[in-house]
């Protein structure tokens, strides 16, 4: 497309971004890999200066055989899966609703999107205290109003609480993307289906939903990547107790609380592999889009 001169200039302009990201990726990654094969407990006197003992795959084995590993996988799956189901289903419904003509569309859209802009620590604390507190929370007032015993959300329904909070944060994202996708649907297609005698539900099922297929896939993949690493929401609410210790949080605790760097690093490598598997699917979709 272009001349030789511009090509060499282009390479030069790309260099800073590429080098920075390369360093940002490779340096810590190499260190994590290195630590994952070492015994490294700074609290017990291990230090980089004195050299670390090579322990092979011991950290990897210990990480997955520890009693907290499977519960953390379970918590991760529950939270990620729960949020995905809620946000995608409600997101599709909300997107369709917001696509209908009604008074105050702009304002309602702003109301619906707002939670996405609330910083995670704020939304977690607001929900924990002002909505879910068993004495003074809004839910407790509601429960009492209907004559039932308020729920101790954070201890008795901790996973559900986290799912609720995180869904609230991510529902706007799903809605917004799906709404954008719906609006790109060619209205002539729907009109053709209508002329062909398809009723509303059939039009939704055979035309709208397939059209949304790609957008839904993208929502699922991107959310999965972000949801796998939710941190602040757990950090400020349950602190990982009551069955809300996700894989991310477990690794965090291994590194920060118990200061077992080797073990935490092995967990980190697992997390990186897991994220990359999902990333691969996402990149294939995004990559296809690039070819246009």
């Amino acid at each position: 497309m272009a001349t030789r001169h511009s090509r060499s200039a282009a390479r030069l302009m790309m260099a800073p971004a590429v080098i920075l990201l390369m360093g940002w990726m490779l340096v810590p990654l190499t260190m994590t890999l290195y630590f994952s094969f070492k015994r490294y407990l700074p609290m017990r006197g291990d230090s980089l200066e004195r050299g670390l003992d090579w322990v092979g795959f011991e950290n990897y084995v210990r990480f997955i055989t520890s009693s907290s590993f499977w519960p953390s996988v379970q918590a991760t799956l529950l939270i990620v899966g729960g949020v995905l189901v809620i946000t995608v289903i409600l997101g599709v419904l909300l997107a369709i609703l917001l696509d209908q003509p009604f008074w105050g569309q702009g304002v309602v859209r702003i109301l619906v999107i707002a939670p996405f802009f609330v910083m995670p620590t704020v939304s977690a604390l607001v929900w924990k205290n002002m909505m879910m507190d068993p004495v003074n929370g809004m839910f407790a007032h509601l429960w009492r109003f209907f004559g039932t015993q308020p729920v101790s959300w954070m201890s008795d329904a901790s996973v559900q609480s986290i799912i609720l909070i995180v869904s609230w944060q991510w529902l706007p994202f799903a809605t917004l993307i799906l709404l954008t996708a719906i609006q790109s649907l060619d209205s002539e297609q729907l009109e053709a289906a209508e002329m062909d005698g398809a009723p509303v539900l059939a039009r939704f099922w055979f035309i709208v939903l397939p059209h949304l297929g790609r957008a839904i896939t993208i929502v699922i993949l991107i959310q999965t990547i972000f949801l796998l690493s939710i941190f602040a929401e757990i950090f400020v609410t349950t602190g990982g107790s009551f069955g809300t210790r996700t894989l991310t949080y477990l690794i965090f605790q291994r590194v920060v609380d118990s200061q077992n760097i080797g073990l935490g690093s092995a967990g980190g490598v697992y997390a990186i592999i897991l994220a990359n598997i999902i990333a691969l699917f996402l990149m294939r979709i995004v990559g296809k889009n690039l070819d246009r």
Partner: protein
Amino acid sequence: MGRITLDKVAKSFGEVEVIPPLDLTIEDGEFVVFVGPSGCGKSTLLRLIAGLEDVSAGEIRIDGKDATAVPPAKRGLAMVFQSYALYPHMSVRKNIAFPLRMAGLDAAEQERRVRAAADVLNLTDYLDRRPGQLSGGQRQRVAIGRAIVREPSAFLFDEPLSNLDAALRVGMRLEISELHNRLKTTMIYVTHDQVEAMTMADKIVVLRAGNIEQVGSPLELYRAPRNLFVAGFIGSPKMNLIGGDIAARHHATTIGIRPEHISVSPEAGEWHGTVGVSEHLGSDTFFHVACEGIPEPVTVRVGGEVSLHHGDAIWLTPDPDHLHRFDKDGLRVA
């Protein structure tokens, strides 16, 4: 001055050879049209001349000087793009003045030349508008204005009319021809529309798959197409091309006869057939006639209104003076 010479110029993108080595000379003041079906390499050839693409081999000379390695800005050429490529954030005045500003002319001189160009192109009332507020034809004129203020040694047009509607296209065609008559500057014009080529060119270059099929004046191409491709491409409606026994009778593999060179008779003639679809244009009538022994329907032009109906049996006779004969390689036989 604007004499452009291509000497064994070739272009490949990676493995793919888009233009095999070709030679071409464009004389000063000539209006040359590159014509061919899409993908024939005509736009690439234009971009090579412009300097927007590097040549893979060969030499481009402008007024005798080697310009092969000269960047586009320094070649002294001006280009009008298919998409007009106007700067959306600048007013019409700024758009037209842009090349002058780049050349470092002072503001007064810029304004004088912009005024002159706007005057020629009927843009005076629109100088302060943005491109987004103009119609397609007006945008086209701004693009031309931007090209003429530089007083280039040659204009390059890349399918400039293909985004306009049919009526406007005819008008702009005349305007560009008029401009050429007045400026007498070399113009190279790329199009896939053979009508544009026939009506505007001094010299037509027919391209196919990067190869030059024929170079000549419009009438040379019309009268004596060098091969089957040119024969089929130039002229509207298309020349009838007939093979088989009928061609053999004329000592050729394929014969070609233009619709306007066939006479029609109800009683007698060379080919017998039945009238199919007829197209009435008022001035002319075109009949598509299914003839015995000819697989494709033969197109015939008859002047004025003629009352023949679907299913009528008629006789056709090709005018022997205008019969084109081609050999088995598709080349013209004299």
